[in-house]
């Protein structure tokens, strides 16, 4: 039997048809499919985590006696959830084309659109939202009233602009770090597949 196994093997492959190579262009199909699934799943999980945060925010501030601020925060976070969900739908609407390379390029563009939209939101929306939040928190306190009476409108506006800019920059930096941590590896992998596919073309 020992000889038979070797014979079977050798004779079996005498016919060159047995060793026909598969077409090479679909190289990355499975790989890209898995990667895009990973990106989508991370994005979905990331977004879904906003819901419990919103609820905790509302409960926490309500217990601390700031019901209005709690509701405000919850509404803002839930709005962010819907905003992200809309962006995710845009990602899902990238049409799968016969050409994997073009599909990945389109997908990458959509991801960058999502990132760019979020940067704008963090840069402009976050300072506004936080400043309103601060106002809701401190509006009835003596220190707030003293503070408002002490400064002129011009100085107050300048102060809000400075604080707003600081919040904006800090928000952008934090988003950048979070984005790199969550998606950096996947995006690098996506770039690498695109480069590989380009060289096959």
């Amino acid at each position: 039997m020992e000889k038979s196994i070797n014979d079977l093997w050798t004779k079996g492959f005498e016919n060159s048809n047995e060793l026909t190579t598969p077409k090479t262009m679909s190289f990355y199909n499975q790989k890209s499919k898995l990667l895009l699934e990973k990106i989508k799943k991370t994005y979905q999980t990331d977004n879904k985590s906003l819901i419990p945060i919103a609820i905790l925010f509302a409960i926490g501030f309500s217990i601390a006696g700031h019901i209005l601020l709690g509701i405000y925060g919850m509404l803002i976070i839930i709005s962010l959830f819907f905003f992200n969900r809309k962006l995710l739908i845009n990602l899902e609407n990238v049409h799968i084309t016969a050409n994997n390379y073009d599909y990945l390029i389109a997908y990458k563009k959509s991801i960058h659109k999502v990132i760019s939209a979020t940067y704008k939101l963090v840069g402009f929306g976050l300072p506004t939202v936080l400043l309103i939040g601060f106002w809701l928190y401190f509006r009835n306190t003596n220190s707030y009233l003293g503070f408002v009476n002490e400064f002129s409108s011009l100085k107050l506006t300048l102060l809000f602009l400075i604080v707003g800019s600081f919040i904006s920059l800090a928000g952008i930096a934090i988003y950048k770090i979070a984005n790199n941590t969550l998606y950096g590896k996947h995006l690098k992998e996506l770039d690498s597949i695109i480069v590989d596919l380009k060289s096959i073309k």
Partner: protein
Amino acid sequence: MSNDFYKTSIIPHAGIIIKICRAYTDSQEDFEDYYQEVCLQIWKSRNAFQEKSKWSTWIYRITLNVCLTLTKKSKKKGFSKEFTSEEITKNKAFENEDLNILYEAIKKLSELDKGIILLHLEENSHREIASITGLTPNNIAVKINRIKKQLKILLDGKIN
């Protein structure tokens, strides 16, 4: 991956890749995925190849590693499925019926044993198989004897 690299460095050794990938897959679709992933990894690791061993040995090593990794991954994800007899007939990899039977028997071996017997059937020396698998040549010799006995039982009465 450039087409030149594929044509000059992979195609001449495609037989090795095909033979090993066939042993680790049950459908044409999986086979193509494994084949493609092997080619991709060969290309990606081309700069790590030091000419201490033959290029074909390097290809054997990568092919086996990729097949073992992918099989492990698909088992972990629960992707491996039991095929019905109709599906097995449809998915027959080779025109030669005896070869199909031999492959079915090889597929029943453990993942590492599959690799060892394939390398042996491809006439690699015990030393080469040892360098590819990370085992000792003595261990390989013992394992090959044991695997052949196992195959003999699995093939008993199936091939004239």
